[in-house]
Protein backbone atom coordinates (compact mmCIF):
# COMPACT_ATOMS: atom_id res chain seq x y z
CA UNK A 1 0.00 0.00 0.00
CA UNK A 2 1.19 3.46 -0.88
CA UNK A 3 1.65 6.05 1.88
CA UNK A 4 0.18 9.37 0.75
CA UNK A 5 1.15 12.31 2.97
CA UNK A 6 -0.04 15.90 3.16
CA UNK A 7 2.17 18.83 2.17
CA UNK A 8 0.94 22.27 3.11
CA UNK A 9 4.24 23.89 2.18
CA UNK A 10 7.76 23.03 1.01
CA UNK A 11 9.21 22.15 4.45
CA UNK A 12 6.28 19.76 5.03
CA UNK A 13 6.76 18.21 1.61
CA UNK A 14 10.39 17.57 2.37
CA UNK A 15 9.52 16.18 5.80
CA UNK A 16 7.02 13.78 4.22
CA UNK A 17 9.39 12.61 1.49
CA UNK A 18 12.38 12.29 3.84
CA UNK A 19 10.35 10.18 6.25
CA UNK A 20 9.05 7.65 3.80
CA UNK A 21 5.99 8.99 1.95
CA UNK A 22 5.44 7.30 -1.41
CA UNK A 23 3.44 10.27 -2.55
CA UNK A 24 2.55 13.73 -1.31
CA UNK A 25 -0.50 15.82 -2.09
CA UNK A 26 -0.73 19.58 -2.16
CA UNK A 27 -2.68 22.55 -3.48
CA UNK A 28 -2.36 26.04 -4.91
CA UNK A 29 -2.73 29.11 -2.72
CA UNK A 30 -6.39 29.75 -3.45
CA UNK A 31 -9.89 28.37 -3.21
CA UNK A 32 -9.28 25.68 -5.83
CA UNK A 33 -8.39 23.25 -3.05
CA UNK A 34 -10.04 22.11 0.16
CA UNK A 35 -7.34 23.40 2.52
CA UNK A 36 -7.61 27.06 1.56
CA UNK A 37 -6.04 28.45 4.73
CA UNK A 38 -4.06 31.65 5.16
CA UNK A 39 -0.32 31.13 4.73
CA UNK A 40 -0.74 27.57 3.47
CA UNK A 41 -0.08 25.93 0.10
CA UNK A 42 2.18 26.56 -2.85
CA UNK A 43 3.08 29.21 -5.34
CA UNK A 44 4.06 27.93 -8.78
CA UNK A 45 7.75 28.46 -7.99
CA UNK A 46 7.57 26.57 -4.68
CA UNK A 47 5.61 23.84 -6.35
CA UNK A 48 8.30 23.41 -8.99
CA UNK A 49 10.87 23.00 -6.25
CA UNK A 50 8.65 20.59 -4.37
CA UNK A 51 7.97 18.42 -7.40
CA UNK A 52 11.68 18.28 -8.21
CA UNK A 53 12.51 17.35 -4.61
CA UNK A 54 9.92 14.58 -4.55
CA UNK A 55 10.69 13.17 -7.99
CA UNK A 56 14.43 13.04 -7.30
CA UNK A 57 13.59 10.83 -4.33
CA UNK A 58 11.08 8.63 -6.16
CA UNK A 59 8.03 10.10 -4.50
CA UNK A 60 5.00 11.05 -6.55
CA UNK A 61 3.13 14.32 -6.34
CA UNK A 62 -0.64 14.72 -6.46
CA UNK A 63 -2.34 18.05 -6.76
CA UNK A 64 -5.72 18.68 -5.15
CA UNK A 65 -8.07 20.83 -7.24
CA UNK A 66 -10.99 19.52 -5.29
CA UNK A 67 -13.49 22.28 -4.56
CA UNK A 68 -16.56 23.16 -6.61
CA UNK A 69 -16.17 26.18 -8.89
CA UNK A 70 -19.13 28.39 -9.64
CA UNK A 71 -19.49 30.04 -13.05
CA UNK A 72 -17.79 33.31 -12.07
CA UNK A 73 -14.68 31.47 -10.82
CA UNK A 74 -14.49 28.63 -13.28
CA UNK A 75 -11.52 30.07 -15.17
CA UNK A 76 -9.41 29.92 -11.99
CA UNK A 77 -9.99 26.17 -11.77
CA UNK A 78 -9.18 25.74 -15.47
CA UNK A 79 -5.98 27.67 -14.93
CA UNK A 80 -5.11 25.48 -11.96
CA UNK A 81 -5.56 22.35 -14.09
CA UNK A 82 -3.41 23.83 -16.86
CA UNK A 83 -0.74 24.85 -14.36
CA UNK A 84 -0.71 21.39 -12.82
CA UNK A 85 -0.23 19.80 -16.23
CA UNK A 86 2.54 22.25 -17.05
CA UNK A 87 4.28 21.55 -13.73
CA UNK A 88 4.25 17.82 -14.36
CA UNK A 89 2.38 16.56 -11.32
CA UNK A 90 1.68 12.84 -11.28
CA UNK A 91 -2.06 13.11 -10.75
CA UNK A 92 -4.87 15.57 -10.13
CA UNK A 93 -7.30 15.05 -7.26
CA UNK A 94 -10.63 16.40 -8.48
CA UNK A 95 -14.23 16.45 -7.24
CA UNK A 96 -16.25 18.60 -9.64
CA UNK A 97 -17.61 17.12 -12.86
CA UNK A 98 -16.99 20.35 -14.79
CA UNK A 99 -13.34 20.38 -13.73
CA UNK A 100 -12.95 16.67 -14.49
CA UNK A 101 -14.49 17.25 -17.90
CA UNK A 102 -12.11 20.10 -18.61
CA UNK A 103 -9.09 18.05 -17.49
CA UNK A 104 -10.14 15.10 -19.67
CA UNK A 105 -10.53 17.33 -22.69
CA UNK A 106 -7.35 19.37 -22.32
CA UNK A 107 -4.95 16.99 -20.63
CA UNK A 108 -6.20 13.49 -21.31
CA UNK A 109 -2.91 11.87 -20.31
CA UNK A 110 -2.72 13.52 -16.91
CA UNK A 111 -3.96 10.97 -14.33
CA UNK A 112 -7.12 11.89 -12.46
CA UNK A 113 -8.02 10.75 -8.95
CA UNK A 114 -11.50 11.28 -7.59
CA UNK A 115 -11.33 13.42 -4.45
CA UNK A 116 -13.06 12.45 -1.25
CA UNK A 117 -15.03 15.66 -1.81
CA UNK A 118 -16.90 13.94 -4.66
CA UNK A 119 -18.74 11.82 -2.02
CA UNK A 120 -18.38 8.54 -3.92
CA UNK A 121 -19.41 6.03 -1.26
CA UNK A 122 -20.43 3.15 -3.52
CA UNK A 123 -19.20 1.38 -6.64
CA UNK A 124 -22.01 2.59 -8.91
CA UNK A 125 -20.91 6.17 -8.30
CA UNK A 126 -17.29 5.16 -8.86
CA UNK A 127 -18.27 3.43 -12.11
CA UNK A 128 -19.87 6.66 -13.27
CA UNK A 129 -16.68 8.66 -12.79
CA UNK A 130 -14.56 5.88 -14.26
CA UNK A 131 -16.61 5.44 -17.40
CA UNK A 132 -16.98 9.09 -18.23
CA UNK A 133 -13.95 10.75 -16.75
CA UNK A 134 -11.39 7.94 -16.73
CA UNK A 135 -10.48 8.27 -13.07
CA UNK A 136 -7.71 5.91 -11.97
CA UNK A 137 -8.19 6.10 -8.25
CA UNK A 138 -10.86 7.16 -5.79
CA UNK A 139 -10.47 8.43 -2.24
CA UNK A 140 -13.32 7.05 -0.13
CA UNK A 141 -15.28 9.21 2.31
CA UNK A 142 -14.64 8.41 5.95
CA UNK A 143 -18.09 6.94 6.50
CA UNK A 144 -17.77 3.31 5.43
CA UNK A 145 -17.28 0.26 7.62
CA UNK A 146 -14.52 -2.20 6.75
CA UNK A 147 -16.95 -4.66 5.16
CA UNK A 148 -18.45 -1.85 3.09
CA UNK A 149 -14.96 -0.77 2.01
CA UNK A 150 -14.21 -4.37 1.00
CA UNK A 151 -17.36 -4.52 -1.03
CA UNK A 152 -16.49 -1.30 -2.83
CA UNK A 153 -12.97 -2.56 -3.62
CA UNK A 154 -14.32 -5.86 -4.98
CA UNK A 155 -16.65 -4.07 -7.36
CA UNK A 156 -14.56 -1.06 -8.25
CA UNK A 157 -12.75 -0.80 -11.58
CA UNK A 158 -10.18 1.60 -10.07
CA UNK A 159 -7.68 1.69 -7.21
CA UNK A 160 -9.04 2.69 -3.79
CA UNK A 161 -7.36 5.07 -1.36
CA UNK A 162 -8.63 5.46 2.20
CA UNK A 163 -7.86 7.83 5.04
CA UNK A 164 -5.65 6.27 7.70
CA UNK A 165 -4.92 9.05 10.12
CA UNK A 166 -5.84 12.62 11.01
CA UNK A 167 -8.89 14.77 11.49
CA UNK A 168 -12.15 13.04 10.94
CA UNK A 169 -15.16 14.31 9.02
CA UNK A 170 -18.20 12.66 10.50
CA UNK A 171 -20.29 13.95 7.60
CA UNK A 172 -19.91 12.71 4.05
CA UNK A 173 -17.34 15.00 2.49
CA UNK A 174 -18.62 17.19 -0.33
CA UNK A 175 -22.12 17.07 1.07
CA UNK A 176 -21.71 19.00 4.28
CA UNK A 177 -22.93 22.58 4.32
CA UNK A 178 -22.81 23.14 8.09
CA UNK A 179 -19.94 25.57 7.71
CA UNK A 180 -21.60 27.76 5.09
CA UNK A 181 -24.85 27.70 7.04
CA UNK A 182 -23.07 29.40 9.95
CA UNK A 183 -20.38 31.39 8.13
CA UNK A 184 -21.17 31.66 4.41
CA UNK A 185 -18.11 29.60 3.44
CA UNK A 186 -17.96 25.84 3.05
CA UNK A 187 -15.40 23.28 1.87
CA UNK A 188 -17.28 23.07 -1.45
CA UNK A 189 -17.41 26.78 -2.19
CA UNK A 190 -14.43 28.20 -0.35
CA UNK A 191 -12.09 25.33 0.42
CA UNK A 192 -12.35 25.58 4.20
CA UNK A 193 -14.61 24.32 6.96
CA UNK A 194 -15.29 26.64 9.90
CA UNK A 195 -12.89 29.27 8.52
CA UNK A 196 -10.65 31.05 11.02
CA UNK A 197 -12.03 34.46 10.04
CA UNK A 198 -15.43 33.42 11.42
CA UNK A 199 -14.07 32.21 14.78
CA UNK A 200 -14.27 34.35 17.88
CA UNK A 201 -13.13 33.45 21.39
CA UNK A 202 -14.55 35.11 24.50
CA UNK A 203 -13.31 34.72 28.06
CA UNK A 204 -16.29 34.46 30.39
CA UNK A 205 -16.74 33.40 34.03
CA UNK A 206 -18.18 30.09 32.68
CA UNK A 207 -15.06 29.41 30.61
CA UNK A 208 -13.65 30.11 27.20
CA UNK A 209 -16.48 30.50 24.73
CA UNK A 210 -15.98 29.70 21.07
CA UNK A 211 -18.28 31.35 18.57
CA UNK A 212 -18.45 30.52 14.90
CA UNK A 213 -20.32 32.92 12.68
CA UNK A 214 -21.84 34.27 15.89
CA UNK A 215 -23.07 30.85 17.05
CA UNK A 216 -21.80 29.64 20.41
CA UNK A 217 -20.33 26.24 19.55
CA UNK A 218 -18.51 25.39 22.77
CA UNK A 219 -17.55 26.51 26.26
CA UNK A 220 -14.33 25.09 27.63
CA UNK A 221 -13.68 24.92 31.31
CA UNK A 222 -10.29 25.24 32.95
CA UNK A 223 -7.91 22.48 31.98
CA UNK A 224 -9.88 21.45 28.91
CA UNK A 225 -7.72 21.61 25.84
CA UNK A 226 -9.06 23.65 22.96
CA UNK A 227 -8.53 22.19 19.51
CA UNK A 228 -9.48 23.94 16.30
CA UNK A 229 -13.15 24.95 16.65
CA UNK A 230 -14.71 22.88 13.90
CA UNK A 231 -18.47 23.28 13.97
CA UNK A 232 -19.37 19.58 14.17
CA UNK A 233 -17.01 19.08 17.12
CA UNK A 234 -18.71 21.56 19.41
CA UNK A 235 -20.90 20.89 22.43
CA UNK A 236 -24.58 21.64 22.06
CA UNK A 237 -27.88 21.19 23.85
CA UNK A 238 -30.20 18.45 22.68
CA UNK A 239 -33.15 17.75 24.92
CA UNK A 240 -31.86 18.25 28.45
CA UNK A 241 -28.29 17.23 27.73
CA UNK A 242 -25.25 19.25 26.78
CA UNK A 243 -22.73 17.10 24.92
CA UNK A 244 -20.80 16.52 21.72
CA UNK A 245 -24.05 16.03 19.84
CA UNK A 246 -22.40 15.37 16.51
CA UNK A 247 -18.83 14.27 17.12
CA UNK A 248 -16.18 14.25 19.81
CA UNK A 249 -12.95 16.02 18.93
CA UNK A 250 -11.13 12.80 18.11
CA UNK A 251 -8.80 11.78 15.30
CA UNK A 252 -9.02 8.85 12.99
CA UNK A 253 -6.31 6.24 13.48
CA UNK A 254 -6.40 2.95 11.58
CA UNK A 255 -2.84 1.87 12.24
CA UNK A 256 -3.96 -1.33 13.95
CA UNK A 257 -5.95 -2.32 10.86
CA UNK A 258 -3.22 -2.22 8.24
CA UNK A 259 -3.16 -5.95 7.43
CA UNK A 260 -6.96 -5.93 7.11
CA UNK A 261 -6.90 -2.91 4.82
CA UNK A 262 -4.24 -4.56 2.70
CA UNK A 263 -6.25 -7.80 2.55
CA UNK A 264 -9.30 -5.77 1.55
CA UNK A 265 -7.38 -4.63 -1.52
CA UNK A 266 -6.74 -1.02 -0.57
CA UNK A 267 -4.04 0.58 -2.75
CA UNK A 268 -3.12 3.63 -0.72
CA UNK A 269 -3.41 5.08 2.77
CA UNK A 270 -3.91 8.80 3.05
CA UNK A 271 -2.77 10.92 5.98
CA UNK A 272 -4.90 14.00 6.60
CA UNK A 273 -3.38 17.33 7.65
CA UNK A 274 -1.99 19.76 5.09
CA UNK A 275 -2.60 22.43 7.73
CA UNK A 276 -0.24 20.75 10.22
CA UNK A 277 3.42 21.64 10.90
CA UNK A 278 6.44 20.08 9.18
CA UNK A 279 7.46 18.44 12.45
CA UNK A 280 4.02 16.85 12.74
CA UNK A 281 4.25 15.58 9.16
CA UNK A 282 7.73 14.16 9.80
CA UNK A 283 6.61 12.37 12.94
CA UNK A 284 3.44 10.92 11.44
CA UNK A 285 5.11 9.89 8.17
CA UNK A 286 7.91 8.16 10.08
CA UNK A 287 5.52 6.14 12.24
CA UNK A 288 3.29 5.18 9.32
CA UNK A 289 6.26 4.18 7.15
CA UNK A 290 7.45 1.86 9.90
CA UNK A 291 3.96 0.48 10.40
CA UNK A 292 3.35 -0.12 6.70
CA UNK A 293 6.71 -1.85 6.33
CA UNK A 294 6.06 -4.04 9.35
CA UNK A 295 2.57 -4.97 8.20
CA UNK A 296 3.82 -5.85 4.71
CA UNK A 297 6.58 -8.05 6.09
CA UNK A 298 4.57 -9.92 8.67
CA UNK A 299 0.87 -9.34 8.13
CA UNK A 300 -0.13 -12.25 10.36
CA UNK A 301 1.84 -11.28 13.42
CA UNK A 302 1.60 -7.52 12.87
CA UNK A 303 0.82 -5.48 15.92
CA UNK A 304 1.38 -1.74 16.20
CA UNK A 305 4.27 -0.93 18.52
CA UNK A 306 3.40 0.90 21.70
CA UNK A 307 5.84 3.67 20.85
CA UNK A 308 4.02 4.36 17.53
CA UNK A 309 0.69 4.62 19.29
CA UNK A 310 1.95 6.97 21.95
CA UNK A 311 3.67 9.15 19.34
CA UNK A 312 0.51 9.37 17.30
CA UNK A 313 -1.80 10.00 20.21
CA UNK A 314 0.44 12.85 21.36
CA UNK A 315 -0.23 14.70 18.12
CA UNK A 316 -3.86 13.70 17.67
CA UNK A 317 -6.67 16.17 17.91
CA UNK A 318 -8.33 15.89 21.30
CA UNK A 319 -5.56 13.39 22.11
CA UNK A 320 -8.01 10.58 21.51
CA UNK A 321 -8.16 8.39 18.47
CA UNK A 322 -10.92 6.31 16.96
CA UNK A 323 -11.32 3.74 14.22
CA UNK A 324 -14.17 5.90 12.96
CA UNK A 325 -16.62 4.17 10.67
CA UNK A 326 -14.37 1.14 10.35
CA UNK A 327 -15.45 0.33 13.86
CA UNK A 328 -19.01 -0.86 13.67
CA UNK A 329 -20.39 0.65 16.93
CA UNK A 330 -19.33 4.10 15.76
CA UNK A 331 -21.96 3.86 13.04
Amino acid at each position, binding site marked *: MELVCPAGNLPSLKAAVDNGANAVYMGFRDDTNARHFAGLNFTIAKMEQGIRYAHERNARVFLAINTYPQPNGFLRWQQAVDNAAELGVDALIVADIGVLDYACERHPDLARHLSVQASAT*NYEAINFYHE*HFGIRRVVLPRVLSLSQVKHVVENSPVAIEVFGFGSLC*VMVEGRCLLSSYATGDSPNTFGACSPASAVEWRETPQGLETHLGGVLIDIRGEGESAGYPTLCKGRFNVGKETYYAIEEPTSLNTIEMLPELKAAGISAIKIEGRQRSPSYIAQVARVWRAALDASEQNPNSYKPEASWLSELSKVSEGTQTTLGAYHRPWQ
Partner: protein
Amino acid sequence: MNDFQPKLALGPILYYWPLDTILDFYERMAETPVDIIYLGETVCSKRKLLRTQDWLTLAEKLAQTGKEVVLSTLTLLEADSELKTLRRLCEQKDFLVEANDMAAVHLLEGSAFVTGPSVNIYNSRTLKRLADFGLRRWVLPIELSRDTLADMQANRPDGVETEVFVYGRLPLAYSARCFTARAHNLPKDDCQYRCLDYPDGLTLSSQDNKPFLTLNGIQTQSARSCNLLNALPEMKKMGVDILRISPQSKHTEKVINIFHRGLEEPESVTEGMKRLQALMPMGACDGYWYGRAGMEAEVKDRI
Protein backbone atom coordinates in the same frame (compact mmCIF):
# COMPACT_ATOMS: atom_id res chain seq x y z
CA MET B 1 -42.46 36.45 -20.04
CA ASN B 2 -45.28 37.93 -18.00
CA ASP B 3 -47.31 34.81 -18.58
CA PHE B 4 -44.55 32.58 -17.33
CA GLN B 5 -45.63 30.93 -14.13
CA PRO B 6 -43.35 28.57 -12.16
CA LYS B 7 -44.85 25.30 -10.99
CA LEU B 8 -45.01 24.26 -7.36
CA ALA B 9 -43.43 21.05 -6.17
CA LEU B 10 -43.67 19.22 -2.88
CA GLY B 11 -40.31 17.71 -1.95
CA PRO B 12 -39.96 14.25 -0.40
CA ILE B 13 -40.85 13.88 3.29
CA LEU B 14 -37.47 14.10 5.02
CA TYR B 15 -38.71 12.78 8.39
CA TYR B 16 -39.96 9.41 9.54
CA TRP B 17 -43.68 9.51 10.09
CA PRO B 18 -46.05 6.67 10.99
CA LEU B 19 -47.60 4.87 8.05
CA ASP B 20 -51.09 6.29 8.52
CA THR B 21 -49.70 9.78 8.87
CA ILE B 22 -47.88 9.47 5.56
CA LEU B 23 -50.89 8.08 3.71
CA ASP B 24 -53.19 10.68 5.18
CA PHE B 25 -50.68 13.42 4.36
CA TYR B 26 -50.60 12.53 0.68
CA GLU B 27 -54.34 12.21 0.50
CA ARG B 28 -54.49 15.81 1.62
CA MET B 29 -51.64 16.88 -0.65
CA ALA B 30 -53.56 15.56 -3.64
CA GLU B 31 -56.08 18.32 -2.91
CA THR B 32 -53.54 21.13 -2.84
CA PRO B 33 -52.39 23.21 -5.82
CA VAL B 34 -48.91 21.59 -6.04
CA ASP B 35 -48.15 20.39 -9.56
CA ILE B 36 -45.37 17.95 -8.73
CA ILE B 37 -44.96 15.53 -5.83
CA TYR B 38 -41.62 13.91 -5.00
CA LEU B 39 -42.08 10.61 -3.22
CA GLY B 40 -39.75 8.26 -1.41
CA GLU B 41 -37.19 7.81 1.33
CA THR B 42 -34.10 9.96 0.80
CA VAL B 43 -32.53 9.88 4.27
CA CYS B 44 -32.35 6.45 5.92
CA SER B 45 -32.81 2.97 4.45
CA LYS B 46 -33.97 1.66 7.81
CA ARG B 47 -37.18 3.64 7.49
CA LYS B 48 -39.33 0.95 5.96
CA LEU B 49 -42.90 1.55 7.02
CA LEU B 50 -43.45 2.05 3.32
CA ARG B 51 -41.53 -0.44 1.19
CA THR B 52 -40.53 0.25 -2.39
CA GLN B 53 -43.70 -1.38 -3.69
CA ASP B 54 -45.82 0.74 -1.34
CA TRP B 55 -44.21 3.92 -2.63
CA LEU B 56 -44.90 2.80 -6.20
CA THR B 57 -48.54 2.09 -5.37
CA LEU B 58 -48.85 5.49 -3.74
CA ALA B 59 -47.20 7.07 -6.78
CA GLU B 60 -49.80 5.54 -9.07
CA LYS B 61 -52.59 6.72 -6.84
CA LEU B 62 -51.29 10.29 -6.80
CA ALA B 63 -50.65 10.29 -10.53
CA GLN B 64 -54.31 9.46 -11.02
CA THR B 65 -55.23 12.68 -9.24
CA GLY B 66 -53.36 14.60 -11.96
CA LYS B 67 -50.13 15.26 -10.07
CA GLU B 68 -46.78 14.72 -11.71
CA VAL B 69 -45.03 12.18 -9.50
CA VAL B 70 -41.25 11.85 -9.26
CA LEU B 71 -39.60 9.06 -7.28
CA SER B 72 -36.85 10.32 -4.97
CA THR B 73 -33.94 8.08 -4.09
CA LEU B 74 -31.60 7.65 -1.14
CA THR B 75 -28.84 10.24 -0.71
CA LEU B 76 -26.11 8.31 1.10
CA LEU B 77 -25.70 4.84 -0.39
CA GLU B 78 -23.41 2.44 1.43
CA ALA B 79 -24.89 -1.05 1.67
CA ASP B 80 -25.59 -3.36 -1.23
CA SER B 81 -29.23 -3.63 -0.17
CA GLU B 82 -29.50 0.13 -0.71
CA LEU B 83 -28.12 -0.17 -4.23
CA LYS B 84 -30.65 -2.94 -4.87
CA THR B 85 -33.56 -0.68 -3.94
CA LEU B 86 -32.03 2.08 -6.01
CA ARG B 87 -31.82 -0.20 -9.07
CA ARG B 88 -35.44 -1.14 -8.73
CA LEU B 89 -36.51 2.51 -8.69
CA CYS B 90 -34.23 3.42 -11.58
CA GLU B 91 -35.37 0.50 -13.70
CA GLN B 92 -39.10 1.25 -13.54
CA LYS B 93 -40.35 3.31 -16.44
CA ASP B 94 -43.63 4.72 -15.14
CA PHE B 95 -42.21 7.66 -13.23
CA LEU B 96 -39.37 10.11 -13.50
CA VAL B 97 -36.66 9.54 -10.86
CA GLU B 98 -34.80 12.08 -8.73
CA ALA B 99 -31.14 11.08 -8.34
CA ASN B 100 -29.61 12.15 -5.04
CA ASP B 101 -26.26 10.44 -5.60
CA MET B 102 -24.05 9.80 -8.62
CA ALA B 103 -24.92 6.10 -8.34
CA ALA B 104 -28.45 6.98 -9.38
CA VAL B 105 -27.19 9.26 -12.14
CA HIS B 106 -25.16 6.33 -13.43
CA LEU B 107 -28.14 3.97 -13.37
CA LEU B 108 -30.42 6.53 -15.03
CA GLU B 109 -28.08 7.55 -17.84
CA GLY B 110 -29.71 7.52 -21.22
CA SER B 111 -33.19 8.22 -19.91
CA ALA B 112 -34.68 11.42 -18.53
CA PHE B 113 -33.88 12.09 -14.87
CA VAL B 114 -33.90 14.79 -12.18
CA THR B 115 -31.12 15.63 -9.73
CA GLY B 116 -31.96 16.61 -6.17
CA PRO B 117 -30.27 19.28 -4.03
CA SER B 118 -27.47 16.98 -2.84
CA VAL B 119 -26.06 16.39 -6.32
CA ASN B 120 -23.32 18.96 -6.69
CA ILE B 121 -24.07 20.98 -9.82
CA TYR B 122 -22.13 24.16 -9.10
CA ASN B 123 -21.30 25.35 -12.62
CA SER B 124 -22.52 25.35 -16.22
CA ARG B 125 -20.02 22.81 -17.46
CA THR B 126 -21.30 20.27 -14.93
CA LEU B 127 -24.91 21.05 -15.84
CA LYS B 128 -24.15 20.65 -19.53
CA ARG B 129 -22.35 17.34 -19.03
CA LEU B 130 -25.21 15.90 -16.98
CA ALA B 131 -27.72 17.14 -19.55
CA ASP B 132 -25.80 15.04 -22.11
CA PHE B 133 -26.59 12.02 -19.94
CA GLY B 134 -30.32 12.76 -19.77
CA LEU B 135 -30.72 15.33 -17.00
CA ARG B 136 -34.05 17.05 -17.54
CA ARG B 137 -34.42 18.96 -14.30
CA TRP B 138 -31.99 19.97 -11.56
CA VAL B 139 -32.50 21.37 -8.11
CA LEU B 140 -30.14 24.22 -7.28
CA PRO B 141 -27.74 23.03 -4.54
CA ILE B 142 -28.83 24.49 -1.21
CA GLU B 143 -25.80 26.72 -0.57
CA LEU B 144 -25.72 28.48 -3.94
CA SER B 145 -26.87 32.07 -4.40
CA ARG B 146 -29.13 33.91 -6.81
CA ASP B 147 -26.05 35.37 -8.52
CA THR B 148 -24.71 31.92 -9.28
CA LEU B 149 -28.15 30.81 -10.40
CA ALA B 150 -28.37 33.78 -12.77
CA ASP B 151 -25.06 32.76 -14.34
CA MET B 152 -26.25 29.17 -14.62
CA GLN B 153 -29.56 30.20 -16.17
CA ALA B 154 -27.72 32.22 -18.82
CA ASN B 155 -26.03 29.06 -20.10
CA ARG B 156 -28.69 26.51 -19.32
CA PRO B 157 -28.85 23.65 -21.83
CA ASP B 158 -32.06 23.37 -23.84
CA GLY B 159 -34.74 21.23 -22.30
CA VAL B 160 -33.42 21.43 -18.74
CA GLU B 161 -35.73 22.78 -16.05
CA THR B 162 -34.47 24.56 -12.94
CA GLU B 163 -35.97 23.95 -9.51
CA VAL B 164 -35.21 25.93 -6.35
CA PHE B 165 -35.74 24.87 -2.74
CA VAL B 166 -37.89 27.78 -1.53
CA TYR B 167 -39.39 26.61 1.71
CA GLY B 168 -38.52 24.31 4.58
CA ARG B 169 -35.70 23.24 6.82
CA LEU B 170 -32.54 22.95 4.77
CA PRO B 171 -30.89 19.57 4.41
CA LEU B 172 -27.28 20.45 5.29
CA ALA B 173 -25.32 17.25 5.88
CA TYR B 174 -25.35 13.46 5.82
CA SER B 175 -23.38 11.02 7.94
CA ALA B 176 -22.89 7.30 8.45
CA ARG B 177 -23.67 8.07 12.03
CA CYS B 178 -27.19 8.53 13.36
CA PHE B 179 -27.46 11.58 15.58
CA THR B 180 -30.97 10.84 16.74
CA ALA B 181 -29.87 7.41 17.98
CA ARG B 182 -26.80 9.07 19.52
CA ALA B 183 -29.01 11.52 21.40
CA HIS B 184 -30.69 8.52 23.00
CA ASN B 185 -27.41 6.70 23.64
CA LEU B 186 -28.48 4.01 21.21
CA PRO B 187 -26.31 2.42 18.54
CA LYS B 188 -27.48 3.00 14.98
CA ASP B 189 -27.97 -0.76 14.56
CA ASP B 190 -30.51 -0.69 17.37
CA CYS B 191 -31.97 2.79 16.94
CA GLN B 192 -35.48 1.68 17.95
CA TYR B 193 -36.75 3.99 15.25
CA ARG B 194 -36.53 6.99 17.53
CA CYS B 195 -37.01 9.26 14.50
CA LEU B 196 -40.70 8.38 14.77
CA ASP B 197 -40.80 10.49 17.96
CA TYR B 198 -39.68 13.63 16.11
CA PRO B 199 -42.02 14.44 13.22
CA ASP B 200 -40.04 17.63 12.52
CA GLY B 201 -36.67 16.40 13.75
CA LEU B 202 -34.86 16.92 17.04
CA THR B 203 -33.65 20.44 17.77
CA LEU B 204 -29.99 21.07 18.54
CA SER B 205 -29.34 24.39 20.27
CA SER B 206 -26.22 26.29 21.22
CA GLN B 207 -25.41 26.38 24.94
CA ASP B 208 -27.06 29.78 25.18
CA ASN B 209 -30.26 28.03 24.06
CA LYS B 210 -30.55 29.36 20.54
CA PRO B 211 -31.94 26.73 18.15
CA PHE B 212 -29.26 26.07 15.54
CA LEU B 213 -29.68 22.73 13.78
CA THR B 214 -32.17 19.91 13.50
CA LEU B 215 -31.11 16.30 13.91
CA ASN B 216 -33.01 14.00 11.59
CA GLY B 217 -31.36 10.58 11.86
CA ILE B 218 -28.25 10.60 9.70
CA GLN B 219 -29.25 13.93 8.19
CA THR B 220 -28.58 17.32 9.76
CA GLN B 221 -30.87 20.17 8.85
CA SER B 222 -31.11 23.83 9.68
CA ALA B 223 -33.27 24.70 12.68
CA ARG B 224 -34.70 27.65 10.81
CA SER B 225 -36.87 27.14 7.78
CA CYS B 226 -35.68 28.57 4.52
CA ASN B 227 -38.31 30.96 3.22
CA LEU B 228 -37.91 32.59 -0.18
CA LEU B 229 -41.50 33.73 -0.67
CA ASN B 230 -40.49 37.34 -1.16
CA ALA B 231 -37.96 36.30 -3.82
CA LEU B 232 -40.69 34.89 -6.07
CA PRO B 233 -40.80 37.91 -8.40
CA GLU B 234 -37.09 37.69 -9.12
CA MET B 235 -37.26 33.92 -9.54
CA LYS B 236 -39.96 34.39 -12.14
CA LYS B 237 -37.76 36.89 -13.94
CA MET B 238 -34.86 34.45 -13.83
CA GLY B 239 -36.96 31.75 -15.42
CA VAL B 240 -36.98 29.37 -12.45
CA ASP B 241 -39.37 26.64 -13.56
CA ILE B 242 -40.23 24.96 -10.28
CA LEU B 243 -40.38 25.96 -6.63
CA ARG B 244 -39.87 23.24 -4.03
CA ILE B 245 -41.66 23.24 -0.71
CA SER B 246 -40.35 20.75 1.82
CA PRO B 247 -42.99 18.96 3.92
CA GLN B 248 -43.34 19.63 7.64
CA SER B 249 -45.63 17.81 10.04
CA LYS B 250 -48.06 20.68 10.36
CA HIS B 251 -49.40 23.43 8.12
CA THR B 252 -47.93 22.16 4.85
CA GLU B 253 -51.20 22.92 3.02
CA LYS B 254 -51.19 26.45 4.36
CA VAL B 255 -47.62 26.94 3.20
CA ILE B 256 -48.49 25.64 -0.26
CA ASN B 257 -51.48 27.93 -0.47
CA ILE B 258 -49.44 30.97 0.52
CA PHE B 259 -46.87 30.23 -2.20
CA HIS B 260 -49.61 29.50 -4.72
CA ARG B 261 -51.25 32.80 -3.95
CA GLY B 262 -47.87 34.52 -4.09
CA LEU B 263 -47.52 33.35 -7.67
CA GLU B 264 -51.05 34.29 -8.69
CA GLU B 265 -51.21 37.58 -6.81
CA PRO B 266 -47.72 39.04 -6.30
CA GLU B 267 -49.13 41.75 -4.02
CA SER B 268 -50.10 39.04 -1.50
CA VAL B 269 -46.44 38.32 -0.69
CA THR B 270 -46.16 40.85 2.15
CA GLU B 271 -49.12 39.38 3.94
CA GLY B 272 -47.91 35.87 3.07
CA MET B 273 -44.57 36.56 4.75
CA LYS B 274 -46.38 37.51 7.94
CA ARG B 275 -48.56 34.42 7.86
CA LEU B 276 -45.60 32.12 7.23
CA GLN B 277 -43.86 33.43 10.36
CA ALA B 278 -46.47 31.69 12.45
CA LEU B 279 -46.16 28.42 10.53
CA MET B 280 -42.42 27.84 10.87
CA PRO B 281 -41.27 25.77 13.86
CA MET B 282 -38.16 27.93 14.58
CA GLY B 283 -38.36 31.03 12.39
CA ALA B 284 -36.98 31.76 8.95
CA CYS B 285 -33.69 32.10 7.12
CA ASP B 286 -32.82 33.14 3.57
CA GLY B 287 -29.09 33.89 3.64
CA TYR B 288 -27.93 31.42 0.99
CA TRP B 289 -30.10 32.99 -1.70
CA TYR B 290 -28.38 36.33 -1.14
CA GLY B 291 -24.87 34.88 -1.03
CA ARG B 292 -24.59 35.06 2.77
CA ALA B 293 -24.41 32.59 5.64
CA GLY B 294 -27.38 30.27 5.20
CA MET B 295 -28.80 30.95 8.66
CA GLU B 296 -29.10 34.70 8.14
CA ALA B 297 -32.65 35.96 8.09
CA GLU B 298 -34.45 38.70 6.23
CA VAL B 299 -31.38 39.55 4.26
CA LYS B 300 -33.49 41.20 1.59
CA ASP B 301 -34.52 43.94 4.00
CA ARG B 302 -30.91 44.68 4.89
CA ILE B 303 -29.22 44.89 1.50
